[in-house]
């Protein structure tokens, strides 16, 4: 199974409520995926500050002097904001690559959840309501976000096996379904220079889209290409810095409902995930067509 939610705001006045709306949608999808949960929020403005969201199994040790150590290594000011097992590191945008390299040298066991201009990803094993409250998702503001509740089928129930998967700057993907050609596709992508953290099929889908976009495709074109190159069952919701996309495989047995108003575009595995959104009673509600790419940009 698995549950997916997504919310792309058109109305700026809703931005302070993004986390609260998305967290409620996520918790409603607990029945579809009680193993683990994750959420990706696009928050910050274009301020020249880069963000790296990191996770550790021993945050007290790993995060204690991380900002100072990393700052010294790259010769720039680094700040650290800890949330439970995760932390968001901020540094000048032009130091992002140097910071990632230094981080893996300084703290090899710390996992990178996301990196980029304004994306933060929080994911852990446990019930969605516990994950949402642990990371104070309801207090977060932002422009768009996606979330996932996981019922594992293809790889272990671990933090790194939870969604969203981020394989490129400010990019992330959540998946409901299972891919059947992920091993061969992973080998191809490794030859092309992509790296993988898990044996998970959904990470391959994320890396595939990242690879296509690296080659110059936009989000819509990358998703269009996935319809020919990915085999299996999938409903994907994808986020980029300013975009939000949805695509389902041609069989389309994994459920998907969308709603659009003047204020937002919302996605839910089921309609009930969206019932408390403002104005849902008069929203245009539809099921995305099979093998059809939908995407929105700010």
């Amino acid at each position, binding site marked *: 199974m698995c549950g997916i939610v997504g919310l792309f705001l058109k109305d700026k006045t809703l931005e302070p409520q993004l986390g609260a709306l998305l967290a409620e949608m996520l918790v409603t999808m607990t029945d579809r995926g009680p193993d683990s949960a994750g959420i990706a929020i696009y928050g910050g403005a274009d301020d020249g500050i880069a963000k790296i969201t990191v996770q550790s199994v021993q945050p007290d040790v790993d995060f204690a002097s991380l900002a100072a150590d990393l700052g010294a290594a790259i010769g720039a000011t680094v700040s650290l904001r800890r949330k439970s097992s995760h932390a968001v590191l901020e540094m000048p945008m032009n130091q992002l690559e140097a910071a990632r390299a230094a981080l893996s040298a300084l703290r090899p066991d710390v996992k990178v959840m996301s990196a980029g201009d304004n994306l933060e990803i929080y994911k852990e094993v446990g019930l969605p309501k516990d994950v949402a409250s642990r990371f104070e998702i309801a207090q977060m503001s932002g422009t768009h976000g996606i979330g996932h509740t996981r019922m594992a089928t293809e790889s272990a129930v671990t933090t790194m096996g939870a969604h969203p998967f981020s394989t490129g700057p400010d990019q992330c993907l959540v998946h409901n379904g299972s891919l059947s050609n992920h091993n061969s596709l992973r080998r191809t992508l490794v030859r092309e220079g992509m790296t993988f953290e898990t044996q998970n099929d959904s990470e391959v889908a994320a890396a595939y889209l990242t690879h296509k976009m690296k080659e110059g495709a936009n989000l819509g074109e990358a998703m269009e290409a996935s319809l020919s190159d990915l085999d299996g069952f999938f409903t994907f919701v994808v986020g980029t810095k300013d975009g939000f996309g949805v695509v389902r495989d041609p069989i389309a047995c994994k459920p998907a409902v969308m709603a659009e108003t003047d204020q937002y575009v919302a996605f839910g595995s089921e*309609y009930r995930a969206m019932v408390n959104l403002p104005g849902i009673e008069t929203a245009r509600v539809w099921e995305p067509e099979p093998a059809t790419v939908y995407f929105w940009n700010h």
Partner: protein
Amino acid sequence: MQTFDLATRGLRELNQTLHALRGTTNETAWEIVNAKGSHAIAVGVDAPLDITVRGSTGYYCAGMNKQATIRIDGNAGPGVAENMMSGRVIIEGDASQYAGATGRGGLLVIKGNASSRCGISMKGIDIVVHGSIGHMSAFMAQSGNMVVLGDAGDALGDSLYEARLFVRGSVKSLGADCIEKEMRPAHLAMLAELLERGEASHKAKPEEFRRYGSARKLYTFNVDNAAAY
């Protein structure tokens, strides 16, 4: 009119209340409010009730219905009226996947569109869709009638048995062993009656439809077709 608030009383109490009305009852008119996409609303009803569900429903609304008329004043989630035995289910909006699947009798009316696998394995139910239907609809449909005022998606009636399919618009593709068949006067009369019962006679005329059915080459095993199985 009895009003049942799902938000305060919950799903289990709703279905137990409706099931307890088996046999004779004077409480035949029901309104269910705060549906909010909940699953399994009014499943297994077996009494001549008239139920209106306010709002959109989740999985399996009105499943296994016997005798009741159940109206959904919104959209219906996957598997609406699955395995219906008799009675009527009327959806004012759209229906998700496999609406009316395996239905054995009664009438399912969808005033919007139905998505994929509508009427899959239907066994005697009548389905009238005012809009269009998605791919793989009427897959392995055994008996009953499906009337579609709009278009049909890919692979309509794949591996069809003896269900009759009437489509007014385009058919993207026919499934294995499904062919267009001649529309005879008896079919036109049947369609007129189905449109009337399906609250659609003001929207379409029987002459505007084409009939599709089984070529009967697949389900009756014929050794000459062995390569096709």
